[in-house]
C-alpha cells in the first residue's frame, strides 16, 4: 500500500518539519519513504509544502498526483490542496485560522483548532506537532506509540531539549481527535 500526504501552510508554521518527522518515523519503522520539499524562494510568511510518500513497496514517484491525505495549516493551502485530494481522502485543517467549508462532497474534513490548542499549552510553536498527533490518529500511517517511543531518534539531537514538550503536543492532538 502506498500512501501520499501533502503538508502545507505558511513558512514558519513547521510544515516541512511535520513532513520530515513523519518521513523519519516511517523510515525507522522499516517502510519505503520519500520526502519532497518545495524549496527555494519560499520565505517566512509565504507558503510552504512538502510531499511524503510512505509505502510497503519501492516508491516510483515522489510527486503525488492524488494524495490520500492533506494537512492544511492556513487558508491558501486549504483552497489549493483540497482540490487535488483523491476522492474519499481526508484533509486535516487548522480550524483556528481556516474557514473549513469545502465545495467538495466526496472528501472528509477534520477540523483541529491547532493554534488554539497550542496557545493553551503556552507556545504557538508546537501547533505543528499537535496537528501531527491529530493526523497520526486519523491516518495511522505510523503507529502513535512508535512515534512517542522513538521521538528522540526521530527528531534528532538538535531537538533533545524539546522532547517533553513535543511529546505533550503530539498527545494533545491525538487526544483531541480521539475525543
Amino acid at each position, binding site marked *: 500500500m502506498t500512501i501520499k500526504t501533502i503538508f502545507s501552510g505558511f513558512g514558519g508554521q513547521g510544515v516541512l518539519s511535520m513532513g520530515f518527522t513523519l518521513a523519519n518515523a516511517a523510515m525507522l519503522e522499516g517502510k519505503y519513504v520519500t*520526502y519532497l*520539499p518545495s524549496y*527555494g524562494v519560499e520565505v517566512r510568511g509565504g507558503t510552504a509544502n512538502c510531499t511524503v510518500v510512505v509505502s510497503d513497496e519501492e516508491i*516510483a514517484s515522489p*510527486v503525488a498526483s492524488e494524495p490520500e491525505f492533506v494537512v492544511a495549516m492556513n487558508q491558501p493551502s486549504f483552497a489549493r490542496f483540497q482540490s487535488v485530494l483523491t476522492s474519499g481522502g481526508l484533509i486535516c485543517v487548522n480550524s483556528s485560522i481556516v474557514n473549513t467549508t469545502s465545495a467538495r462532497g466526496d472528501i472528509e474534513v477534520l477540523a483541529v483548532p491547532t493554534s488554539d490548542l497550542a496557545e493553551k499549552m503556552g507556545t504557538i510553536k508546537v501547533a505543528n506537532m499537535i496537528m501531527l498527533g491529530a493526523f497520526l490518529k486519523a491516518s495511522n500511517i505510523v503507529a502513535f506509540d512508535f512515534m512517542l517511543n522513538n521521538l528522540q531518534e526521530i527528531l534528532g539531537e538538535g531537538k533533545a531539549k524539546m522532547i517533553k514538550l513535543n511529546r505533550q503536543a503530539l498527545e494533545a492532538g491525538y487526544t483531541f481527535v480521539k475525543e
Partner: protein
Amino acid sequence: MSGNAALGEAAILAGCTCYFGYPITPQNELTEYMAKRVPETGGVFIQSESEIAAINMVLGASVAGARAMTSSSSPGMSLKQEGISYLAADELPAVVVDMVRGGPGMGNISPAQSDYFQATRGGGHGDYKTIVLAPGSVQELTEVVPLAFDLADEYRNPVIILGDGMLGQMMEPVSFENIKPPKKYQKDYILTGAKDRPSRMVRSLLFDTKEEEEHNWKLFRKYQRMERNEVRYETFLLDDAEMVVVAYGTGARIAKGAIKRLRQENLKVGMIRPITLWPFPAKIMKETAQNGAEFFVFEMSAGQMVEDVRLALEGKGHIHFYGRPGGVIPTPIELFRAISRHYYQSRRGKK
C-alpha cells in the same frame, strides 16, 4: 538523507579529497555538506570566488593527482564549460555535478532537464565528449558517484553527473554499504615535481596542426572505447511493451509512477531509462523498435533527448513526445493521461 547530502557522502567514500564550489540553488546543500565533511577527512574544501575559479581549482588538483569534484546548477555550469574543455583536452579526470534548474538565462530554481544538450555534446569548445551519468534516486547516487570517479580515472576524462533540483532536495532512506574503498590508478602523468625523473608537461596548446589533429584522433578513439564499454541503462516491464517510455533521472521516476497506473488498466507500457546519457543506449532502443514497439519520450524540457532517440532508431519506429520545460514538474496522473492518449491514438492508427 537529501540527494545533495548523499552525493557528498558518496563522493567522500569514493575517495574525493578536493571539493571546490560556488553557491547556487538548488545544489547548496552539497556544498554545505562538503564544507563540513571534506576537512574532517583531511581533504581540501574551498568556496571559490566564482564557478570559473572552482573548475580551474579542480583542474589544478587533478593534475596533482587528487580525486577532485565541483558542482553547480545550470547558469553556473555554463561558466564552467571552458574549464571542462581544458580538462578534456589535457586528459585529466574530474567529476562535475550539475543539478539542473529551469532556463535559459537565470531561469528559475525549479527542477528541469533542459541542459541535456550542453552535457551530452561536450558543452564547451572543441571536439570532445564527457561521460554523462543521470541517477534517478538518492540510493542510486551511491552507485553513480563512485562510478563517476572510477570512469574519470580510467579514461582520464571529466565525467558529468546530471541531476536536477528534485533529486538534490528530495530525501529518501539511503545506505552507503555498497561503496568499496577506491581503486588505485597508475598515474604516470601527474605533476609531482621532477626530482629523479624526466619532467612532464600537461598542456592543451598545440600550435602544430598535425600534432593537434593526432591529439584529436587519440581523444576520438578514447570516446569510441567509452561508447563500446560504458553504456548503462535500466529497463522496466519491457518484454511485452507496445509503447516504450524513454525518460531519465527524476523524469523517469514520474514516468514509472504513470506506468504502474497504466499497467493497472492493462495498457502494455514499459520503459527504458538511460543511466548514461552519453554514451547513449542506442542499441537497446533499436532492438526494441524491431519488435514493433512505439516510443514515447518524456523530458522536463522542450525536447532534447528525443533527438538521440531519433538517431538511435535510424528512421525505424514511431516516436511520440511529451515535454514540460521551464521547471514544471508534471504529476504521474498528468503523464498517465498523456501516455494513454498517445497509446490509443496509435492503436487506432494501426487498425
